[in-house]
């Protein structure tokens, strides 16, 4: 025994072979580990060599940034002028031109709220109150009609303000609604269970577009004469109902992944149904389904663009309208690239946040 431990100490520490560390080592291991990998590496390198410089030349070197439509037609590169010259219309649509500082202010306020809320240490009941106050404030500023602010009807809220409005309210209302539906579907009370199953299957069985159509065309027919419900609100409700059904199924998957023993241990302590779910089951279930939940939220965020179908002017629609102006016809690539990048930022923020949350909740 002793001899072995002595001999262990006397073995010299040897450095690893040069070929397995450093840049050369990394490249050998990751890029040229066998013939197929080497071939793919070369092929991809060639593809990048051909495409990247061309793109850079088009997007930056030969691009036109601040010209009018005429100059754009002469240029060989990208015409970013369509974005810069129409920026305010793309972003804010028909919101009165002189009043557009209000959506800017609202968006900055909203971004600040989102940023602040993304840290878990800030999560408490005051944050919820702050959100309610904040969203009310945003609504008031957008709508106006007090303190000398001219009132702007919701029909004029368009562009990015509408997209954000539909997504923020849509996602934050659909999530709790979906969780309740998931719990209902696993309920032991037959009436509640049936109701939830029927709801979920019915909603999942129709496309979002048809729900939006129903909300905008069919629903008003059922209202008594003289009663109208705002079109944006109707679209909003359709989006919430649709997204909630999908979230419910994902959350149900999470609930099923929780072992029976967790329910039993919670019940043995004398916790009632509400406390058992709130303290033991949901925290674990919701954590395990963060990745699929975020997928649904991201796709719901992008799906808000379907409201163009019922004539609402969201970000995508205002871009489209810009393109129908004869001066800017034919520059759809640039315009849509810009719009896509805005959507990308939103989705990227969400997926980044979810990855951080998963890391923090890992136990």
């Amino acid at each position, binding site marked *: 025994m002793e001899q072995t431990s002595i001999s262990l100490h006397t073995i010299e520490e040897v450095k690893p072979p040069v070929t397995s560390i450093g840049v050369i080592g990394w490249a050998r291991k990751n890029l040229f580990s066998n013939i197929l990998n080497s071939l793919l590496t070369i092929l991809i390198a060639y593809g990048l060599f051909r495409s990247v410089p061309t793109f850079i030349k088009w997007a930056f070197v030969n691009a036109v940034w601040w010209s009018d439509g005429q100059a754009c037609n002469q240029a060989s590169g990208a015409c970013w002028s369509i974005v810069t010259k129409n920026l305010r219309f793309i972003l804010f649509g028909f919101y009165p031109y002189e009043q557009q500082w209000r959506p800017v202010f609202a968006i900055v306020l909203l971004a600040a709220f989102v940023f602040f809320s993304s840290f878990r240490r800030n999560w408490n009941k005051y944050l919820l109150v702050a959100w309610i106050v904040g969203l009310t404030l945003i609504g008031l500023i957008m709508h106006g009609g007090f303190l000398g602010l001219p009132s702007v009807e919701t029909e004029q809220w368009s562009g990015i303000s509408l997209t954000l409005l539909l997504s923020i309210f849509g996602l934050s209302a659909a999530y709790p609604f979906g969780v309740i539906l998931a719990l209902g579907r696993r309920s032991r009370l037959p009436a509640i269970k049936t109701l939830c199953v029927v709801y979920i299957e019915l909603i999942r069985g129709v496309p979002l577009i048809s729900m939006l159509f129903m909300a905008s065309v069919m629903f008003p027919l059922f209202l008594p004469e003289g009663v109208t419900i705002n079109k944006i609100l109707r679209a909003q409700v359709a989006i919430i109902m649709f997204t909630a059904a999908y979230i419910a199924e994902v959350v149900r998957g999470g609930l099923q992944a929780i072992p029976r*023993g967790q329910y039993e241990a919670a019940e*043995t302590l004398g916790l009632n149904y509400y406390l058992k779910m709130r303290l033991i089951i949901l925290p674990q279930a919701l954590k395990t389904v963060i990745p699929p939940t975020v997928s649904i939220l991201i796709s719901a965020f992008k799906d808000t663009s379907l409201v163009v179908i019922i004539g609402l002017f969201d970000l995508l629609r205002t871009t489209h309208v810009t393109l129908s102006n004869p001066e800017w016809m034919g520059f759809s690539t640039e315009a849509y690239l810009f719009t896509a990048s805005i959507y990308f930022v939103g989705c990227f923020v969400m997926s980044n946040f979810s990855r951080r949350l998963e890391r923090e909740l890992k136990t």
Partner: protein
Amino acid sequence: MFRNVKLQPPPRERIKDLRGRRLINSTLREAGENNKMTYQATKTPDKVSTGPIIRIVSMHKWFGEFHVLKDINLSVDKGERIVICGPSGSGKSTLIRCINRLEEHQRGKIIVDDIELTNDIKNIEKIRVEVGMVFQHFNLFPHLTILENLTLGPIWVRKLPRSEAEDIAMYFLEKVHIAEQAAKFPGQLSGGQQQRVAIARSLCMKPKVMLFDEPTSALDPEMVKEVLDVMMQLAHEGMTMLVVSHEMGFAKSVAHRVLFMDSGQILEENTPGEFFSNPRHDRSKLFLSQILH
């Protein structure tokens, strides 16, 4: 003594939902003589009890068509320690799980701490507060720290202030020799440590009865002793314990009674000394010869 007649579950009582009232009445009617007394006791659960803390009277349970528990009669006094053993599938776990209503019985009655177990959810929750349970697989809450696992019940069910709940939790963690792990998560502890935490978690609720469902079966051999030591210590302090276990040493040193079960019936009830040296029932003899080699 042992009726081997195959009984069918009564059709009305197989329906499990929300029929509390009618079920109470029908079970009481069946149970016979003591009706009036227990019914009143159910109404005044705060009255000081003098009788046994657990009473099971001709209780039956079915899983679907399968008759898992047949005519169980058992009475447990305060401070009594009972070890239940028997081959797997004999219904011993199901029996103790019926005592805190993790399983529902269909005939007969179970009275715990003067409250009869019926479909009344309030009564069930009241009984669960008084009856602690330790599981084979610990069932700690993995998303909470050890300390949070222990304070959860006292804070949310017993409604104690957090500081007091933490004092109680630390007291019991000291008792199971694991106080230094309070801030860790269950996944960072060994099996034996987790099981000791599970015992401490139950004790924090200050239960009157502790149920142990094969508490050492899922443990590595070298960790069995640390858990049994804690259980013995608990026994010496006078806790009422029902233990499903094959730990014969534990049974010999702390149990007042050993119950032997097979195919849903209690076949033998004996003192540990008698049971191990001189079992009465043929099935017990066979069982003992198999586990003692």
